[in-house]
């Protein structure tokens, strides 16, 4: 079953590539159908209990002897270092992966569905759906992976499918650049990830999660373990767009909106968090690394929230909010004491409400003829009622209105941080809890209330059922996904616990409620009835100039360092290695030829000199 979940989307992608692409409608339907099928498989898988677990793994690389049973028993997973390497494609089917699979496939299916409408007239529809299928395949691989390398394999493939989908409208320079940027920034993360995998491997002797978990306790070199975990975390930083590798995610909004929903909100960016959760035993064992993770998450949450304050593009606001929420999740992974579960909990809830928000924004954009600037919208509440209400519900979940899903999950993270006495990060998280309601309310107010500010906004009308049905479904989930009847099958280790909330109604709940009220209130105060932004904080709008900084660095490398190297190669290395010796030989040859002056007597003279020389040496 797991194999079919994994391979079905791949087959669909291959089929579209190999021939179906000529019939784009068929491609779309086949792709959507396969997404539905995988969803069904996943539900079966999730409900199948332990019986559904497949242990048979595909030996991808197998060199040398496998460790014997006794050796494994003794915790010696790599008895012949350098002589043997076994990497399989296998599955870990536990609560974590089951839940994640359900999220991935369900949102995946909904996005497919939504895309049928959204991408109806796109010329590259086949390619788009092939990309979606490829993405599903890759994401499934990450989730099901039973070892680091397999995870890395699909990790990279996720990057590729994201590249393909962000660059879907590749003839637009911005989309092409965004795709490239996303891939490259992810690659930087992957660099660390791979290094981390290798380090973990030499420390524990294994790449398999279960074996690492067993071996991690016995690792003596704590310093290297910390470094290893940080390296692995690098992968997450890239994929989950944490500071300082967050720059790709806002740009990724150049892709079609359903893609933003699926990949850059709900699933792919969550892969980093998922991965951290998968290796939580490693993080638990590396204290310094864990702290770093917490701080990185917290800082990301804060910076992203600050940046979101001043964005005007509806998708960008959502993108920064995604960043910010990812910061929460990542922070949770480092907290320990159930933080990992809390983070995953937030991942689930966030997946639904953020997918909802993105698809909602997609509907808005679609309705406004691909207008994305919120200041050019307005008054959409009346034009797009369904969209508005679903969007509002999603927003509610995001800003953690009590009893919506987002409330519960965020609460869990904050609680965990407080419990671990991580006061700094906790304070930052609370601050973010003030900012989130503010910018989201700003968004809703500006886009949906007031008067239409442009013709496009004026002429907008409600989207068709293919698009709003997914919205509605997601809205339901956005509100209720924290409750046991939804999260039961999803979550192994965490869900809304109302009893707990009331039992420990403390600082966290109070602060977040205050944050909610203050944030919403302030937004209403500033933005109600405004036609332009009354606040201008260039630093936030310009994203702290980090992009510019990076651009400068890139230019430094591409234009200065690389060109310098190129110059050195042409005018230093090559001449030294090749031209100079060649020239010397030529010059020497010309010197030798000078002796051939043509006059035979001169030759005789040289003859005589040489003769005297030879005799002199031999006789003396």
């Amino acid at each position, binding site marked *: 079953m797991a194999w079919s979940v994994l391979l079905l989307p791949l087959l669909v992608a291959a089929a579209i590539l190999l021939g179906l692409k000529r019939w784009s409608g068929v491609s779309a339907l086949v792709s959507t159908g396969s997404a539905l099928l995988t969803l069904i498989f996943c539900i079966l898988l999730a409900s199948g209990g332990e019986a559904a677990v497949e242990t048979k793994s595909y030996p991808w690389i*197998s060199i040398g002897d496998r460790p014997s049973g006794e050796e494994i028993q003794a915790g010696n997973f790599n008895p012949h270092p*350098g002589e043997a390497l076994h990497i399989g494609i296998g599955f870990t089917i536990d609560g974590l992966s089951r839940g994640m699979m359900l999220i991935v496939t369900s949102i995946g299916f909904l996005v497919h569905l939504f895309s049928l409408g959204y991408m109806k007239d796109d010329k590259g529809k086949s390619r788009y759906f092939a990309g979606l299928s490829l993405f599903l395949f890759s994401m499934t691989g990450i989730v099901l992976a039973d070892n680091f*390398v397999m995870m890395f394999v699909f990790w990279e493939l996720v990057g590729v499918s994201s590249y393909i989908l962000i660059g879907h409208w590749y003839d637009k320079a911005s989309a092409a650049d965004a795709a490239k940027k996303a891939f490259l920034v992810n690659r930087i993360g992957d660099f660390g990830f791979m290094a981390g995998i*290798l380090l973990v491997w030499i420390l524990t002797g294994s790449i398999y999660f279960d074996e690492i978990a067993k071996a991690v306790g016995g690792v003596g*070199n704590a310093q290297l373990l910390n470094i290893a975990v940080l390296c692995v975390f690098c992968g997450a930083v890239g994929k989950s767009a944490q500071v300082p590798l967050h720059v790709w995610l806002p740009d990724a909004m150049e892709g079609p909106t359903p893609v933003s929903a699926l990949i850059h909100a709900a699933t792919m960016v969550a892969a980093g968090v998922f991965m951290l959760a998968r290796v939580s035993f490693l993080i638990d064992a590396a204290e310094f690394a864990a702290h770093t993770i917490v701080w990185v998450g917290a800082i990301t949450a804060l910076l992203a929230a600050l940046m979101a304050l001043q964005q005007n593009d509806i998708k960008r606001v959502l993108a920064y909010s995604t960043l910010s929420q990812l910061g929460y999740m990542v922070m949770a992974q480092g907290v320990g004491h159930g933080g990992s579960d809390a983070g995953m909990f937030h991942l689930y809830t966030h997946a639904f409400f953020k997918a909802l928000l993105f698809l909602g924004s997609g509907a808005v954009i679609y309705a406004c003829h691909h207008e994305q600037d919120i200041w050019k919208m307005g008054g959409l509440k009346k034009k797009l009622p369904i969209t508005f209400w679903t969007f509002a519900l999603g927003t509610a979940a995001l800003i953690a209105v009590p009893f919506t899903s987002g409330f519960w999950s965020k609460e869990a993270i904050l609680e965990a941080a407080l419990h671990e006495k991580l006061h700094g990060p906790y304070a930052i998280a609370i601050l973010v809890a003030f900012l989130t309601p503010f910018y989201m309310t700003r968004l809703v107010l500006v886009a949906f209330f007031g008067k239409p500010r442009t013709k496009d906004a004026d002429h907008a009308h409600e989207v068709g059922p293919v698009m709003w049905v997914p919205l509605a479904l997601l809205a339901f989930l956005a509100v209720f996904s924290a409750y046991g009847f939804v999260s039961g099958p999803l979550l192994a280790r965490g869900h809304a616990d109302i009893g707990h909330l009331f039992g420990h109604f403390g600082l966290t709940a109070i602060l977040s409620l205050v944050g909610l009220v203050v944030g919403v209130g302030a937004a209403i105060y500033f933005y109600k009835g405004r036609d332009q932004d009354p606040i201008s904080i260039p630093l936030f709008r310009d994203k702290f100039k980090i992009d510019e900084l990076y651009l400068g660095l890139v230019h430094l490398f591409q234009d200065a360092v690389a060109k310098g190297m190129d110059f050195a190669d042409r005018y230093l290395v090559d001449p030294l290695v090749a031209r100079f010796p060649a020239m010397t030989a030529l010059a020497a040859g010309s010197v030798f030829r000078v002796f051939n002056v043509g006059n035979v007597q001169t030759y005789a003279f040289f003859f005589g000199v040489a003769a005297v020389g030879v005799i002199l040496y031999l006789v003396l």
Partner: protein
Amino acid sequence: MSTLELLVLLPLLAALAVGLGTPARITALAASVIVLALALILAVNFNTSLEGDGSLQFTSSRPLLDIAGFPKLNLAFGLDGISLVLVLLSALVLLSAVLVAPKEDAIQGSPRLYYLSLLLIGGGALGAFTATDLFFLYAFHELALIPTFLMIGIFGHGENRVRTAWTITIFLGVGSLILLVGLILAVGSLGGTTFDIADLTSRAKSPDHDAGTQSWIFLLLLVGFGILVSLFPFHSWAAPAYAEAPTPVAMLHAGVLKKFGLYGLVRLALPLAPAGAEKWLNLVLLLLLGNILYIGLVTIAQKRLDRMLGYSSVMHMGYAFLGIAAGNVVGVSGAVLLMFAHGLSIALLFALAGWMRERFGDLDFEKFGGLAKSLPRLGLLFGFATFASIGLPGFANFAAEVEIFFGAFAGEDAGMNWIRWATIGALWGVVISAVYMLRAYRGVFMGPKPEKLETPADLAWSDRLPVLILLVALLAVGFAPDLLNQYIRPAVNGLFLVSAG
């Protein structure tokens, strides 16, 4: 005549036939198809169960010289897993290069010479990879030198082609000479009575094998083979040569022939001078970082697609060196696998770049943009090639790199050492290669199309066939590297390996 001998001699005989006047393209095609078929037959019949000693199979030997004071010379062929993989690579790339080669009437100059040279290059590579006699191993590689020279000089592109032909020939010639000295020294210090590689290898295990001599042998072989593989800083021949060579030659040379140097390091340098290897491998680490990081940056700075690909092929050699420097079964297997993978992927890239050059005239990045829209097939295939080249999972390159990295990291101690640091450096190269390849893809295929750029018709089936041959092989091995690992591993196990670090 054994199948293997036939396989090696066929391209040479075909070259002779072409020289004597048979229809050039048909002869070449027929020969390369048969060669591929023979290679596959050998692969199928290859006994992979000989675990451990990597014994040769399909051996044949004909005595040629037996005099006092000089090693016995035999025309001897045989296959072990490493050779087999490289034979498969050669056969695949040869066929696809012949397919890519222009039709007779489209060749400016003598088509007979063109195809004859291609066949000689291919035959040389096949011979070098299958010869079990040290001399013929060396000689078959050299066989390709003159045809390469002529091909670049006569049929090459650009005004500098003659100079480029010179550069590559002199570089490789000098490399071969240094290599020759190293080989003679090795043979001499191992008794001087045999050229048989297996025999030499077993003698090298003797404790009498003087360490000082070994050090010299390894150094000479390293420099010699290093020049052939464009080891930093002996790389400056590669990029212009590949940029200016006719497409099939660039494919064959970058894809196949260049692997000879790596093959030689694995097959000869490590086993014949293990103590020397131990001494010098740290130098290799330094140089390979030169290949990966320094050349990587140089690659980024290139302004033309073909030159960029040329430099990229230099850069990727660094990984193979890393695998070799790892000096264990996993690392060396990875290096062998990378030879195969890189051979196919660079041939793929050159084939496509060649197609573009034929139609666009030159390959300056500046003039391109947005080609994927008007040339979707090209865009797609180039995309695949790009992803293969940057080592994306699913392609053989990735599997090879994984093996290399794991090989290089393997070791008893759980701390950092030189080779592990070097591996980290090499890992950064993965980012660099993604930078230049994606930048190129972005520049050429994505974004808006410049108005001045006129686009030709997309790839026809005849253009796609050679590319697909390579691509399918890359994907097949990428999905199931054990297809080749089953051959490679026993052979590598039989080598006498030393690790850097």
